[in-house]
């Protein structure tokens, strides 16, 4: 058991990226989710939406061609893909709130078994709030996927009966990609679709703060080796 190697953050992004379907409009949150755009399966024609108004964001710009007026939601200087367009913030959030985003993939602190999500306020003393577009995306994207470590650094559960941190949106999460499992949130709570190759089901349950069910076709979770840059 001690040999089991959880996915690193690039592998988690890779795993989520495999589920992005051809032709989707996808919004990727800061942190791990934004890495997913690097791992789309070949041949999938996907538009990445950025909350500040880009429809069709491309990879981060090379230093010598970076344009300070072309930035994404994470303030990164980015490029545009073929067919990209840009709208203002009111129109960008009209797109988000109007249910036109097929999938948003967001970083997260906690998910409850009813799909409640907490990803914007980790209660760091004295630090100001930063909600950005998280509530809009979590409440209104057609599908909400979360990428996060299965447990906190201290070993606490992030998949819970009820969230302990302030909510981002209620009953919104559809799928969860962690370093040791892929789960969905169904009417009866968490359902495991993939479990880290070699991990015992009891071990996964022990690391989860709510009951988990296993899908009939539950598979081992495997990802290709991707090095985390030093």
């Amino acid at each position: 058991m001690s040999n089991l190697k959880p996915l690193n953050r690039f592998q988690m992004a890779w795993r989520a990226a495999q589920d992005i379907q051809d032709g989707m409009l996808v919004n990727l949150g800061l942190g791990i989710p934004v890495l997913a755009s690097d791992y789309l399966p070949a041949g999938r024609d996907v538009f990445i939406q950025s909350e500040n108004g880009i429809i069709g964001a491309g990879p981060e710009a090379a230093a010598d061609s970076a344009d300070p007026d072309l930035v994404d939601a994470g303030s990164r200087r980015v490029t545009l893909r073929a067919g990209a367009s840009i709208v203002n913030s009111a129109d960008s959030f009209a797109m988000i709130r109007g249910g036109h985003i097929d999938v948003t993939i967001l970083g997260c602190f906690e998910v409850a078994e009813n799909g409640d999500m907490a990803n914007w306020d980790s209660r760091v003393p004295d630090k100001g709030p930063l909600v950005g577009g998280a509530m809009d995306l979590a409440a209104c994207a057609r599908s909400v996927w979360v990428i996060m470590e299965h447990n906190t650094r201290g070993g606490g559960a992030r998949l819970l009966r009820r969230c302990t941190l302030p909510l981002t949106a209620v009953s919104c999460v559809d799928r969860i990609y962690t370093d040791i499992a892929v789960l969905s949130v169904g009417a009866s709570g968490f359902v495991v679709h993939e479990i880290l190759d070699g991990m015992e089901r009891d071990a996964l349950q022990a690391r989860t703060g709510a009951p988990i069910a296993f899908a009939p076709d539950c598979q081992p979770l495997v990802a290709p080796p991707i090095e985390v840059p030093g």
Partner: protein
Amino acid sequence: MAIDKRVASAAEALGGVADGAVVLLSGFGGAGFANVLVRALAEMPLRDLTLVVNSATHPLSQTHLLIERGMVRKVVCSAARGRGKELSVFEQLFKQGRIELECLPQGTLAEKIRAGGAGIPAFYTPVGFGTDLTKGRETRTYNGREHVLEEAITGDLALIRADRADRYGNLTFRFTQQNFGPSMATAAKLAVAEVRVAEDTPIAQPEVQLPGVYVDRFLVVD
């Protein structure tokens, strides 16, 4: 007299701004901050401003100047967290109870401003329902889902950044520079733009991204 909205100085651009003004500041992620105008505003002897701005702490914005000089009573934003562990100017003042904060989901902020310019005093949105940010808010069910009632934001002054302007105040923006600028201009009594270039001839109709009727004055910077 032929319309000409170009002004010669930041002082002229900001003429008439008074204590207590609600000031809308465009910009997101480094693009679209009207930093020349914000710096000029920070030099004026103004108090009790309310700032409506996406981020109170973005390092590429000069918003912090207004905050650290004690000119700001309240900030309405979607982001007020400084980077790193050090507290930003905003966070220090907020900790000390010397500045008020209204934190909103970014899309609700954007829509409230759009509504302010569009004559819509209030609207329902599903965003934020069941969260701390909408506690005590009036709610209603539509399509089997709970929504919260949000009211419009209007301002006394909007400071926005654009790329090109013509004498009529028509504006174009580069890439993601537009963000909050166009709707803020519609929601403010006085809308002032800083631009890179003033065109000698009118901007062609399909290129206009914000009609000049929404822009009261513009200043060419650099």
